């Protein structure tokens, strides 16, 4: 595998104008598959979520999942697309072992959604309009695992294993029109575009939208042309770009690679490239032998979908608030600064904070817990904060316990430990672990007497008027009570014991 020469991004940008295009595949989270009633579930035992239809056994016929059609229309509406009054399915034919029928049932001439747009807001607030060519319905393929060989990659594998659980999972493929004028912001725009699609489908509730599971997958097209030239350069399509960072890096890499190729006076080969996360580079993909001729024809086993205005309007009425508008509203409601709010968005914790506030916490407290202690623990456990196991109700209850004086901040962290260890609700953890603040003056007095006896010189200083030295005694008491004392009350009691005015 040869290593491609690249030029620096800045150098590339000096000479060339990039044109982008994206094909984003979104897996829908329907209960069943696109054309069969087998379950659409991720991660089960191989070949256990299949029936004869998604295995493509002899004699089977497809039947369209109504929910999948409706989800596709919802995506189209959210992308400001026109919804085709009449559309059909077509067979895209190529042989590949992950494709059970050796054709993919898709849409060709008449996609269900077409001619849309979406405004992408970049980090500095610049808004960039991306035009959508089409969004069409199709089915996912099975999963190939390449065995043997050194790398587990397709090259050099001895054999491959096929799991058809994913075969037939409903997909919506969203195709942009060529995106011109992004200039040096092309990599950033690429990332922001895919992030926006992910956010939209998640917000619609039509996809789990988890890129690491392949729910949202991006193929990125890049071409360069000299500034001022209208005609597009030859493009490459980079596949397997399955994280937001990878989208940005892949586009940046291809721009740098194209520039180097063009600089050397060679033409770009129109081809598929594969993104490699480990080397942060792309390599040439071998085209499927029949990729040049898919022999599309109308799917005879499926009948056309007719979308009436009533149906489309009913679906439109189900559209949630668009993500950009929702963000503006929430930031205003919560009173976060731009920086605070961006951190929350970047941490993917907007939903959690919204729910926590709705459950009764203040916006400040919700942010404090989610962005602080919970995020910290999630990072240690290498999971999403939302997946850690802390519910908005837990945060609200902990806050309530603090406000009532039953626990302090330090104890609250121990309560969180207990909740995460499965010991029950925060109140139950306080009870079981005996974490309540020690408010019994008798018990505190004993601890204070002990601490004063242990540090007679400090006691003497305090008696002599150096009230600020009281902190050392308070620390001793807190140590003895394992933090379960109310520090303010301890201070009062120490001063009273020593007969000093506070």
């Amino acid at each position, binding site marked *: 595998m040869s290593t491609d020469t690249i030029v620096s991004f800045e150098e590339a940008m000096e000479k060339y104008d990039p044109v982008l295009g994206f094909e984003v595949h979104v897996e829908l989270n*329907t*209960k*069943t598959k696109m054309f*069969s*009633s*087998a*379950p659409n579930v991720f991660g089960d*035992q*191989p*070949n*256990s*979520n*299949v*029936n*004869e239809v998604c*295995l493509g*056994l002899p004699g089977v016929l497809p*039947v*369209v*999942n*109504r*929910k*999948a*059609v409706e989800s596709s229309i919802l995506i189209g509406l959210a992308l400001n697309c026109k919804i085709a009054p*009449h559309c*059909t399915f077509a067979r895209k034919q190529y*042989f590949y*072992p992950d494709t059970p029928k*050796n054709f993919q049932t898709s849409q060709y001439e008449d996609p269900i959604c077409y001619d849309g747009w979406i405004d992408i807001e970049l980090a500095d607030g610049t808004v960039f309009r991306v035009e959508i060519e089409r969004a069409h319905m199709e089915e996912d393929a099975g999963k*190939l*695992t*390449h065995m043997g060989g050194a790398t587990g990659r*397709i*090259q*050099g*594998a*001895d*054999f*491959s*294993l*096929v*799991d*058809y659980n994913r075969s037939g999972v409903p997909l919506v493929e969203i195709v942009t029109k060529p995106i011109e004028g992004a200039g040096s912001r092309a990599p950033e725009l690429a990332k922001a575009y895919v992030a926006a699609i992910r956010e939209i489908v998640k917000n619609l509730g039509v996809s789990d939208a988890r890129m690491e599971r392949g729910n949202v997958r991006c193929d990125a097209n890049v071409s360069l042309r000299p500034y001022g030239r209208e005609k597009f350069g030859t493009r490459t399509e980079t596949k397997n770009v399955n994280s937001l960072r990878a989208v940005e890096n892949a586009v940046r890499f291809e721009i740098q690679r194209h520039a180097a190729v063009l600089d050397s006076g060679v033409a770009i080969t129109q081809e598929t490239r594969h993104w490699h996360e480990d080397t942060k580079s792309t390599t040439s993909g*071998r085209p499927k*032998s*029949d990729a040049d*001729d898919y*022999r599309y024809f*109308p799917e*005879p086993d*499926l*009948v*056309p*979908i*007719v979308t009436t205005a009533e149906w489309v309007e009913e679906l439109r009425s189900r559209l949630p608030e668009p993500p950009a508008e929702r963000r503006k509203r929430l930031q205003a409601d919560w009173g976060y600064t731009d920086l605070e709010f961006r951190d929350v968005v970047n941490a993917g914790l907007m939903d959690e904070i919204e729910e926590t506030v709705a459950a009764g916490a203040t916006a400040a407290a919700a942010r404090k817990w989610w962005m602080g202690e919970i995020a910290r623990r999630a990072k240690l456990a290498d999971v999403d904060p939302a997946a850690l196991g802390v519910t908005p109700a837990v945060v609200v209850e902990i806050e309530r316990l603090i406000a009532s004086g039953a626990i302090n901040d330090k104890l609250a962290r121990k309560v969180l430990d207990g909740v995460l260890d499965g010991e029950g609700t925060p109140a139950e953890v306080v009870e079981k672990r005996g974490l309540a603040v020690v408010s019994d003056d008798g018990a505190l007095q004993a601890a204070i007497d002990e601490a004063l006896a242990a540090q007679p010189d400090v006691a003497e200083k305090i008696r002599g008027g150096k009230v600020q030295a009281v902190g050392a005694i308070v620390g001793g008491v807190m140590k003895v009570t394992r933090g379960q004392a109310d520090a303010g009350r301890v201070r009062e009691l120490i001063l009273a014991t020593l007969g000093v005015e506070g």
Partner: protein
Amino acid sequence: MAAINREQVAHLAQLAHIEMSDDELDRMANELAVIVDSVKSVSEAAGADVPATSHPIPLTNVMREDVVGHVLTAEEALSGAPDSADGRFKVPAILEES
């Protein structure tokens, strides 16, 4: 319409994933040429204004509700497989060694 020749048949056989010997390609090219010739008239039969018919009986919006139906066990799914391993279908390498 050009008559079908041997090179075309070889390309079509590749698209259709059917290995063919030289003899077979020759024979197939001859037979197909005759057949293709006999169906030529079809392309002249209908004018541009005639719509295509893909389904003999026009139906629309045949859809099912999103409810899980029957599922095969992994064992049943693999029961007809020529080769399998680890509960999955086993196939030879996808690419030639490079």
